[in-house]
């Protein structure tokens, strides 16, 4: 396992909900990342975000880690859930909220 892979695994493993995104929740730098942030905010969960624009290794490494070509990427309890399209589809179907409840992730303060 490469160092980058190891680092990503540690980030994903040590936070219940992690969003790898372009920019920050306050200042998203891409429409898809902005949409992902909005969905998580609507769900009212606490989450860690990683700005891949600040880290080229993670920006490339995360795509190999999940075998997924785009950013944002959402992880819940260590599991890759999908990008913003899947998040939106799950949110609209009520599945995302149900899954976050089921996994008992911490709520946003």
């Amino acid at each position: 396992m490469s160092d980058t892979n190891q680092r990503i695994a540690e980030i994903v493993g040590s936070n219940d909900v992690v969003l790898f995104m372009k920019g920050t929740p306050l200042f998203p730098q891409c429409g898809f990342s902005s949409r992902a942030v909005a969905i998580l905010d609507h769900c009212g969960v606490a989450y860690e975000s990683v700005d891949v624009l600040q880290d080229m290794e993670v920006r490339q490494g995360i795509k190999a880690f999940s075998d997924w070509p785009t950013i944002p990427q959402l992880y819940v309890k260590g599991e890759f859930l999908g990008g913003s399209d899947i998040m939106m589809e799950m949110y609209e179907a009520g599945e995302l909220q149900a899954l976050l409840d089921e996994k008992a992730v911490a709520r946003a303060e």
Partner: protein
Amino acid sequence: MAAADITAMITAALPGAEVELRDLAGDDDHWAATVTAPQFAGLSRVAQHKLVYDALGGRMGGVLHALQLVTRVPN
């Protein structure tokens, strides 16, 4: 990428798939696609999306910057 190219690549990899494309910005670069394919049956959403990304042969996230994707199994 032109709509015809996107559709051709997806249907080549997923025979029988139906591809609906909407040009979001009028620039041939920002697309919304709904792909309905029998091959999606029984797969998770992540696996369904991966089939489409694989069909596009690594262009996703590169040449093809923005593709909003919805996948469906035919009724």
